[in-house]
């Protein structure tokens, strides 16, 4: 449970950065070389590598080494888990918004009793 939560934290931190989200979106389309990613997003090799290491640490990347070439591909499982976690919040907000609706209706009824003809 604690282990799961730690993994989730790493996923969330990894995807909190807009550059890393763009890199993930690119990798979602297919595997790429580090040099391709750097050229595509106009970043230094160093900067891209730093972001890729964070993604790798969060288990979001698979790295395949062929000679001197590193090919990267997306590992989507942690993203799925993160989505499931936030989806569990849906019933909470559904219930709160039902209550907000009831609260506003009660307020409106009370006001109607007081005066009429409001646009």
């Amino acid at each position, binding site marked *: 449970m604690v282990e799961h939560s730690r993994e989730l934290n790493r996923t969330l931190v990894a*995807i*909190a950065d807009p550059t890393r989200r763009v890199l993930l979106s690119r990798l979602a389309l297919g595997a790429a070389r580090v040099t391709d990613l750097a050229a595509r997003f106009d970043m230094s090799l160093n900067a891209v590598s730093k972001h890729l290491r964070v993604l790798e640490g969060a288990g979001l990347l698979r790295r395949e080494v062929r000679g001197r070439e590193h090919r990267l591909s997306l590992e989507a499982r942690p993203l799925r888990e993160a989505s499931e976690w936030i989806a569990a919040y849906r019933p909470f907000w559904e219930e709160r918004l039902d209550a907000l609706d009831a609260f*506003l209706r009660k307020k409106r009824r009370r006001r109607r009793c007081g005066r009429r003809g409001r646009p």
Partner: protein
Amino acid sequence: MTASVPSLRVVRRLAARPEEVFDAWIDAESLRAWMCAGATHVASAEVDPRVGGKFRIVMRGAQGDVEHTGRYREIRRPERLVFTWASNHTGGRETLVTVELRSRGADTELTLTHEGLPDDEACRRHEAGWTSIVEKLAAALAAK
């Protein structure tokens, strides 16, 4: 698939004008009335509705008190309210909630987006936290 931030979206049509809906979100007395109807009720609600201001809502239920805290990021009455949200349910993580309101005749269409995304500040803290843990570990190993 696209690598989007995990998020959920709830859309609801409410029988009130956007101004009234907006105020119900930032007024402590209103929050106490609706934020925890049903099995739970709000034990206390404190709000400081300014950008950077904090809020704290304690919900009392069968399983005890749950504290929800956050900070207002954007307050644009009556169309947009953005705040961070953390509680036991989020594992103490800071998440981001955006409430958008659109006028629909005499009603309001509310769109709530909850993102499992630590905000920049939380993210920096996380990174600082990890860095200091790694540094401590390195120091402990070096001392051996």
